[in-house]
């Protein structure tokens, strides 16, 4: 077994690379990935269940900036998330009785300033921007399989 390690090392020179070249290639996330929240302003009634279930109470209720009427929400109370505290457990999404909250694949939330991590309802209502096109694909038959990240054309299948 002395040459076992050397054999392994040399074998992998001839294999395809595994690395995902991240800022240029993004991984395709599954449908239920728990990234940042999406808020549907036309569904939210401002009931406050999300704030009650939130483990770290990162949700506060604020009125909308624009004066557009939302008839289902007469008190004009919409959730505002402080992402410096949110742990992305998405219990709020699961407990929401009207389906006003949803998962999104956005995870690049880094900011230079901590105050910018406060997401207003309008900002939460924006559509997600992160689209991944690469996913891990196995090739070869059983016993000698390899894996690489390859571009897939179709959208999430699961």
């Amino acid at each position: 077994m002395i040459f076992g390690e050397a054999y392994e090392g040399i074998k992998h020179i001839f294999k395809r690379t595994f690395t995902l070249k991240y800022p240029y290639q993004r991984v395709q996330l599954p449908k239920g990935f728990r990234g940042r929240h999406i808020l549907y302003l036309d569904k939210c009634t401002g009931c406050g269940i999300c704030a009650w279930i939130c483990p770290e109470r990162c949700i506060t209720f604020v009125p909308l900036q624009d004066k557009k009427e939302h008839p289902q929400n007469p008190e004009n109370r919409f959730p505002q998330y402080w992402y410096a505290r949110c742990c992305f457990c998405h219990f709020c999404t699961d407990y929401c009785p009207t389906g006003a909250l949803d998962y999104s694949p956005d995870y690049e939330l880094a900011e230079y300033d901590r105050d910018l991590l406060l997401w207003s309802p309008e900002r939460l209502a924006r559509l997600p921007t992160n689209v991944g096109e690469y996913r891990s694909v196995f090739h070869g038959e059983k016993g000698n399989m390899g894996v690489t990240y390859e571009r897939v054309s179709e959208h999430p299948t699961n």
Partner: protein
Amino acid sequence: MSQETLQDFAGVWIGKMSEIVRTVTGSGPVRYLINWSRMYALWPVHITTACCSAEFGAMMGPRLDPERFGLQAVAGGLRQCDLLIVEGTVTKKMAKRLKTVYEQMAKPRYVIAMGDCACSGGLFHDSYSIVNDVHKIFPIDVYIPGCPPRPEALLSAIVKLREKIRREEVFA
């Protein structure tokens, strides 16, 4: 010449030289070169404060391979490091050590607050042994939310930090 005049002479010349250095490094191409080399030699300190280190390890792994950006985790000493990633919760017991680590690092040094706990206390913000505001210990350049953030999110923060370094003055 007497001692005093020699010192005056040297002081004037040192002042002049440093001004020349400042103007040269402040000029476009030289500043660009210096910032470019700083951008590509971000070596993180090997201190793990809490559980976000699992995702830090995943970022260092083969899937994302941050050595593409010159990010190497091999530096043993703090003097060679310029990036401090606060990986998670900072307890009061750890804060003292973290401050020591930060002070031992050579300038220019950059800090990334990784995870909710480093940003604001996160899940444990009301606990009795947690430092909620890490930015009161040292200035923080980039905040990444997430509990823990994805390794891609950490890498995107590093890309953001590189953008900041690219734009900054050499003698800030």
